[in-house]
């Protein structure tokens, strides 16, 4: 016979069953749509980043440091800018400070950026009213985030106080290239001219300041070359260097990785769809047994029949993928609305051909691979079935081709995931996770149907027994429905649990111990007394202020801290300047790494706080008065940092505290709960050694009403302009806002999985519909009322729904716990009430879909049973 026969057969054979085949189409649609949407969006993002990279940096090169640039660095910069035409530079100094508007008496912690004229060299900062950016250089004015005006109740034209400085609010900044919108939630940005920085008096000892220098090189093409030449030596000066290319690469990498992982959520939707394809095909073939047997009787070969049905599956997969891709392109247009605030670039959405093609290819592939296994059964249908249905039970011997198909299926899942994540290992881990969840769901479903059969609750009323018995009877849908529904529910509830637990950490516990919710920092020692007085006269508690002493490590156990791997011919080297490296050649092996090089902000006190726990060693029992200046200071180190530094009890660390060497010995190790709103430290000194060191203070207090907190901040801002305040409620809001937005995007994609799950559910129910219809109508003929038939359906779907919900919630609770323990390292608690609610929703969805598709059973008049012939 001609190959055309296969296609003809495939087409003609589909006529009567197109409605059911459409479910096959629907199964892959949701997954392909989600994949095309997220991958297309990621592609758009990459293009936008590439296009806007230069504007995002605003310069050819950026040098950044936590301390003012050294002379060595300054002279290097001058050399770099020499040329024709000469290059240009602009410094931006950033720090946190209190902004205060006298007219409205509004005070708010802000991120101040003092900018020199010229910045940015590329791209532009837009303002409202337009064109005010250039006026900044005129001095005495400021441009602020819109959010600040809202927070302070201020408007353009008001006077803004920053420390001792006064600025005219000249306009609102509407767009800054490279800025992530949500960061303004932590502190709205306030731009001031660099020339006015001194006047604010805010950059004092101990303030945390970022110094950035933006360079426009005479020849932009050599930026990358310069960066690689000087990167290591600059690291020695605690200066990092960044180019447009670095920026672009980092961002592209990060965003691509993010996109890839979000794509996994979409992939789950597609795999669920594959499950739907498999189950629909399986039941479809069952109902086609007679047809297949007749075809075989008439002389069609097993291969031809198999191919005909495979062609059907392929065609449906392709159709579903096309529909899905179209839908995906539409969804792609809406994604920016969800994530715009989280992205540093303005994304221009356009159809991404690669994502569309990949989505369609994956859709067709998944449909084919998942249909293959049940389709193979077609080859084994005996023509004898035409004579006697009972022979339908094909021999139980395992089909080697079926093993091959199963292997192909497993390999495909690993392959698809690896392609999506871009890593075989992560792909395999993902596939393993999906496999484990599917396995647990499958075993639970199997256990349920076997268990109900074994320990049948014969005490229940008949209708319930009838409904429950449907769970294990031939052609039951228990496994498919539990898998489809359970997986979608598992995803959504895991997301919910993670989000819930992360947020809970930041919330103020209503019944918990009263914790501070307002923090004042950058308090100079001479302000401590007056500030305490101010708090106490206001009726607020004023616990002892916490001193903070900035310091760096000079050596650990006599091993000096390197400034990174420095090449022999340091291009920065100037014989006039001494460097620590000079000793490193002869002395013990130097130590490096982030923990050794970072700036420590340590404190000293006589006791432990309630967020700390001593894990080894002994706490000191001393006061400043008992300290012997001849001995090394005793210190307690946080366990993680101790591990990074490689120190243990008894290790010695020499500190550089503003040029003074302070030797110390580790006498205890502590664990710290960083999630509390509290001042926590990596290193705590015993009282005494640091008493006279340059320091600043932090004060924590609790003010219950938001209005009173605002008022207190205003009063402090007026009296102590350099002191900043953090309002915990605002921090919480900011964190929740960001988390909500991030979770929204993931949840949005997870919804596709649920949609795919519902389609699969619908498919499973519809495919078993004929069976149910016959059964229901027969029951009515035999005297069952509609109510009785309805109750049987209700019992069945409630049982399935409860099982799917329970298993998926148990699974997601475990997954959530694992994530909390190993990824977020946060304590974990189950929100019981919400989980019960979730169970209700899942059961409701199952029942709804089940009853909607079962409605026909109730409507059909019983007479039809006499008319329908099998």
């Amino acid at each position, binding site marked *: 016979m001609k190959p055309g026969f296969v296609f003809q057969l495939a087409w003609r054979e589909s006529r009567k069953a197109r409605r059911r085949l459409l479910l096959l189409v629907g199964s892959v649609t949701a997954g392909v749509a989600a994949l095309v949407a997220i991958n297309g969006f990621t592609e758009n993002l990459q293009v936008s980043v590439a296009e806007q990279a230069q504007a995002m940096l605003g310069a050819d090169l950026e040098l950044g440091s936590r301390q003012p640039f050294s002379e060595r660095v300054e002279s290097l910069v001058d050399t770099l800018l020499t040329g024709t035409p000469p290059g240009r530079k602009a410094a931006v100094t950033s720090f946190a400070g209190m902004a205060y508007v006298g007219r409205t008496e509004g005070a708010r912690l802000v991120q101040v950026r003092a900018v020199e004229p010229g910045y940015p060299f590329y791209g532009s900062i837009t303002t409202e009213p337009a064109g005010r950016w250039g006026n900044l250089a005129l001095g005495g004015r400021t441009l602020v985030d819109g959010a600040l005006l809202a927070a302070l109740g201020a408007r353009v034209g008001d006077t803004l106080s920053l420390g001792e400085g006064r600025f005219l609010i000249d306009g609102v900044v509407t767009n800054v290239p490279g800025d992530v919108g949500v960061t303004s939630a932590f502190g709205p940005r306030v731009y001031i001219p660099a020339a006015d920085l001194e006047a604010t008096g805010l950059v004092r000892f101990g303030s945390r300041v970022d110094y950035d220098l933006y360079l426009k090189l005479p020849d932009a093409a050599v930026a990358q070359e310069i960066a690689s030449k000087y990167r290591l030596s600059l690291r020695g000066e605690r200066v990092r260097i960044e180019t447009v290319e670095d920026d672009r690469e980092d961002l592209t990498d990060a965003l691509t990785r993010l996109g890839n992982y979000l794509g996994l959520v979409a992939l789950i939707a597609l795999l669920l769809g594959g499950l739907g394809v498999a189950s629909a095909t399986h039941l479809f073939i069952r109902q086609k047994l007679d047809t297949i047997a007749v075809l075989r009787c008439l002389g069609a070969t097993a291969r031809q029949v198999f191919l005909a049905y495979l062609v059907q599956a392929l065609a449906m997969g392709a159709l579903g993928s096309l529909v899905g891709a179209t839908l995906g392109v539409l969804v792609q247009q809406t994604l920016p609305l969800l994530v715009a605030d989280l992205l540093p670039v303005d994304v221009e959405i356009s159809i991404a051909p690669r994502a569309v093609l990949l989505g369609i290819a994956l859709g067709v592939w998944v449909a084919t691979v998942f249909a293959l296994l049940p389709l193979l059964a077609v080859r084994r249908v005996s023509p004898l079935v035409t004579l006697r*249905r*009972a022979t*339908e039970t094909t021999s139980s011997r395992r089909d080697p081709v079926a093993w091959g198909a199963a292997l192909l299926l497993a390999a495909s899942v690993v392959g698809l995931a690896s392609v999506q994540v871009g890593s075989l290992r992560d792909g395999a881990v993902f596939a393993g996770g999906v496999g484990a969840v599917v396995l647990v769901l499958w075993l639970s479903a199997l256990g349920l149907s076997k268990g109900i059969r074994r320990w049948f609750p014969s005490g229940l*009323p*008949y209708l319930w*027994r*009838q409904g429950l*018995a*449907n769970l294990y*009877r*031939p*052609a*039951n849908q228990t496994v498919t429905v539990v898998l489809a529904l359970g997986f979608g529910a598992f995803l959504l509830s895991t997301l919910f649990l993670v989000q819930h637990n992360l947020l809970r950490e930041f919330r103020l516990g209503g019944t918990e111990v009263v914790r501070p919710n307002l923090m004042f920092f950058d308090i100079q020692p001479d302000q401590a007394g007056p500030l305490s007085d101010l708090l106490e006269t206001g009726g607020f508690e004023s616990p002892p202020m916490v001193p903070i002493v900035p310091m760096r490590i000079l050596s650990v156990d006599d091993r000096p801290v390197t400034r990174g791997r420095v090449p022999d011919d340091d291009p920065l080297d100037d014989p006039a300047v001494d460097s620590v490296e000079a000793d490193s050649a002869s002395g013990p092996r130097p130590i490096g790494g982030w923990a050794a090089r970072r700036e420590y902000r340590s404190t000293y006190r006589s006791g432990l706080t309630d967020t700390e726990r001593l894990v080894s060693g002994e706490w000191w029992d001393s006061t400043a008065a008992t300290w012997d200046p001849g001995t090394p200071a005793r210190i307690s180190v946080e366990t993680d940092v101790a591990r990074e530094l490689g120190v243990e009890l008894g290790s010695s660390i020499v500190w550089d505290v503003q040029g003074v060497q302070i030797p110390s010995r580790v006498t205890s190790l502590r664990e710290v709960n960083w999630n509390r709103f509290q001042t926590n430290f990596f290193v705590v000194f015993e009282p005494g050694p640091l008493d006279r060191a340059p320091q600043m203070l932090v004060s924590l207090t609790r003010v219950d009403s938001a209005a009173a907190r605002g008022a207190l901040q205003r009063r402090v801002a007026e009296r102590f302009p350099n002191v900043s305040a953090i309002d915990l409620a605002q921090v919480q809001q900011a964190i929740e806002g960001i988390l909500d937005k991030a979770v929204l995007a993931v949840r949005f994609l997870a919804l596709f999985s649920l949609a795919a799950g519902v389609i699969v559910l619908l498919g499973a129910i519809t495919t078993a519909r004929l*069976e149910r219809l*016959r*059964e229901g109508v*027969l*029951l*009515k*003929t*035999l*005297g*069952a*009322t*509609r*109510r*009785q038939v309805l109750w049987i359906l209700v019992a069945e779907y409630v049982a399935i729904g409860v099982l799917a919900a329970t298993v998926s919630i148990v699974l997601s609770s475990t997954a959530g716990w694992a994530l909390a323990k190993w990824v977020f390292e946060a304590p974990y608690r189950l929100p019981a009430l919400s989980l019960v609610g979730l169970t209700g929703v899942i059961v409701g969805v199952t029942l709804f879909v089940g009853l909607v598709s079962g409605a026909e059973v109730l409507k059909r*008049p*019983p*007479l039809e*049973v*006499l*008319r329908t*012939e*099998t």
Partner: protein
Amino acid sequence: MTQPMLLSEGLTQTYLSGGRELTVLNNITFEVERGGFVAIVGPSGSGKTTLLGLLAGLDRPSAGRVVLDGHDLADLSEDDRARLRSEKVGFVFQSFHLISTLTARENVQVPLELRGEPAEARAEELLERVGLGGRSHHYPTQLSGGEQQRVALARAFAARPQILFADEPTGNLDAKTGAGIVELMMELNRELGTTLVLVTHDPELAGKARRIIRLADGAVVEDHATA
């Protein structure tokens, strides 16, 4: 005077087909006494199955009425008719119509369960009675046609119906098996006093009834007792 088990009065059924009114049954009137055994015969398309459906309350007539054991079906809702069936009516179909996902015993239990009566022992007993004692856990696909019809018969008699409607009960069976089924039906009819209404186009089967009602083109053309 005793009330008849079944009364059909001026029963008429018309359908709209292609814009034309099609009369399937035209003014059918007859009575069936309790414990009677009536065969309704006629060629294909004469309206036999439609009549059976109306008599059993599976459908509503265009005109006329059916009174089943004193209940005018026209006064009853669909669910009330279902309840009436569960109490008084049994069915046997040409294509058996067992519920394929239920075992033989479970199929027999259905009418009893719907009425909330103890079912298991009775079902076993009936299966024993129709000669399928050892097959109660088999699914319909595991049974031959004759066996399936015997299960259907057991189901039909499970709730001790006062009237049994049979639609070509032997139509899908060979002569020998068919005869066995009819024997069984008649035995049960005698034992339990059940009224039998049988639709068939098989003259031999009809000959076993005590009365034959012959339909042609939707009307009764003959109604006589057999010898």
